[in-house]
């Protein structure tokens, strides 16, 4: 019995050693230490006091770089790698200003602190990888400079790399789009724009995302559209205009999405996977802006959401013209609920149901929930129009 007690005591002591006083908080030191960074005089040899603005000008197969005081930029042909080795609390603010044109170039960024890319009239085509690949897991602000038009395109085959490259414009961290310019992103390999975090669109920026191989926009942790103009056109089978693994929130902006791909049989899921203008695994919420969607492929959807769809304002028009050979085309589909309480909501299909909230009911009134007192409320199987204006 003494041995049992000794063993238990040993376990307790070992367990106590493992239980240190380590905090489990998120590391926000990049934000909270910012003030002291800004006030530092930088005389200790670190870059903490500087605000690095690096100008990168693409010129065919070469690049000119200015402002790289710390030697972070490495150029090979027109492939640019920015590697900032400083820790998040030591790294300076960084702005990369891109301009010029290349038919086979790229930008790869390695860094531990949020930064900004200004697209100042740039055109980057990369034959074998993303045009811009941000390997920093912190926020990336993409600013389209006022009055500029910018193009990012990729090839149909990527070279195999040890890091992720999920689209023409890919970021490990959050992406915030803003500015007053125009951006065209074309994905020929997979997605046009992809983030392993969330994507936010603000202001008056105009983004055109075209993909012939995958999704227009792919985000793991959410899509938030508060303004700007967003045009998405995807043509591949089972491709989504916006494919979000989390919540999708629209509070503003002028959005147009079209898909033309057919559904494909997913051998893993043992079911057909359909194209959709918006596929949201989390809740879809719209409170403002305009959203026009058309899906023309077999089984195509306007919105396909695994959670609730809540429409409280703005203008939403969803239309499908596809066939129902292998899957059912639906304008608005939710696994749980479709709730309309404001704005102007219109859903139309040529086949199957305009709205599907998971019910088996044959009564169109059971396929969505209308709250309040709309001025127009016309609910039929293939057409739903609800307006509060």
């Amino acid at each position: 019995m003494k041995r049992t007690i000794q063993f238990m005591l040993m376990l307790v002591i070992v367990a106590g050693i493992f239980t240190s006083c380590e905090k489990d908080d998120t590391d926000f030191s990049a934000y909270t230490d910012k003030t002291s960074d800004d006030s530092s005089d930088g005389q200790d040899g670190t870059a903490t006091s500087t605000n690095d603005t690096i100008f990168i000008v693409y010129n065919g197969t070469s690049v000119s770089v200015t402002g790289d005081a710390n030697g972070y930029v490495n150029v090979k042909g027109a492939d640019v790698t920015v590697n900032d080795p400083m820790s998040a609390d030591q790294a300076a603010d960084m702005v990369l200003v891109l301009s010029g044109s290349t038919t086979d170039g790229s930008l790869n960024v390695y860094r531990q602190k949020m930064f900004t890319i200004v697209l100042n009239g740039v055109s980057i085509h990369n034959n074998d990888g993303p045009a811009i690949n941000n390997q920093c897991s912190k926020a990336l602000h993409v600013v389209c400079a006022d009055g500029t038009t910018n193009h990012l395109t990729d090839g149909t085959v990527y070279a195999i790399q040890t890091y992720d490259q999920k689209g023409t414009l890919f970021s490990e961290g959050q992406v915030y789009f803003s500015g007053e310019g125009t951006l065209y992103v074309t994905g020929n390999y997979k997605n046009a724009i992809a983030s392993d975090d969330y994507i936010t669109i603000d202001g008056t920026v105009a983004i055109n995302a075209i993909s012939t191989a995958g999704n227009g926009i792919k985000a793991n942790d959410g899509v938030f559209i508060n303004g700007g103009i967003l045009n998405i056109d995807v043509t591949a089978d089972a491709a989504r205009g916006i494919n979000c693994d989390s919540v999708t929130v629209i509070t503003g902006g002028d959005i147009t999405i079209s898909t033309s791909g057919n559904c494909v049989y997913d051998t893993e899921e043992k079911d057909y996977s359909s194209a959709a203008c918006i596929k949201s695994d989390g809740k879809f919420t719209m409170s403002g802006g305009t959203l026009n969607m058309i899906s023309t492929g077999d089984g195509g959807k306007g919105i396909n959401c695994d959670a609730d769809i809540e429409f409280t304002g703005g203008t939403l028009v969803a239309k499908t013209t596809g066939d129902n050979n292998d899957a059912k085309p639906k304008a608005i589909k939710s696994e749980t609920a479709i709730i309309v309480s404001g704005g102007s909501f219109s859903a139309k299909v040529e086949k199957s149901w305009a709205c599907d909230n998971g019910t088996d009911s044959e009564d169109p009134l059971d396929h969505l929930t209308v709250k309040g007192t709309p001025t127009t409320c016309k609910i039929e199987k293939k057409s739903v129009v609800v307006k509060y204006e």
Partner: protein
Amino acid sequence: MCRVVLNVRTIRMALFLTVAVMSLPISAQSEGGLLFEVGAEKKVTKNFSLGLDGEFRSRNNFKTADRWGIGVKADYKLTNWLKADAGYKLLYTNFHEDINYKSSGAYNTWRPSYWGTKHRIYASLSACYKLPNNVKLSLRERWQYTYRPETTVTRWDFDDEKWEDKMRGMYVHHQLRSRFQVEYDKKKARFTPFAGIELYNGWGVEKIRYNVGTDIRLDKQQSLSVFYRFQNICDSEDEDPNMHYLGFGYKFKF
């Protein structure tokens, strides 16, 4: 002969623990933690006893101290199968961080984790029924009231880029805990294996605990316990993760 009996007993207990563990749900978004519990109990009369308890808990895969607690309690045996108890606990808790987001998804504020106190009172009724084969079934219904006093905390405002003081208001919470437990309770046996499930009910089921383990009788006065606990969070305002606990206990009876 003795060795054969011991082997059968060991196999029986191992089977019991294996089946119990296999019946537990698995969650990917969960953390590991440790639980230490110590208790002392003094029998005042035949039916009435007083007790003193202490506990320590960790989280973040054993790396972060989560809670210290100390409590007093009183038990009264109403009948052979029914017991009532009531008590008070002072809990010194490391409250989780809180990140607040804007509707755009951008960060709004961040309150780091901090230490603070909570007070808890409870009262319970426990009924038990022993089957002829030494298997004991017990059901405990416990009402508990938890009070967290108002306190001032600091938080980071991402817009203003500065720390600010924020009053975190007082908080009270009523819960009804329902625990069902099965144990192999043989008189004078060294081991008393047990398995149980406990539901925390607020306005709905907020938390479910699954326990499996054994009490180890050292002598007439002392006992140890070793257990595994899976805590499944069903509805929590603080977005706590599910927890896998490895627990150790020690009890002394005067």
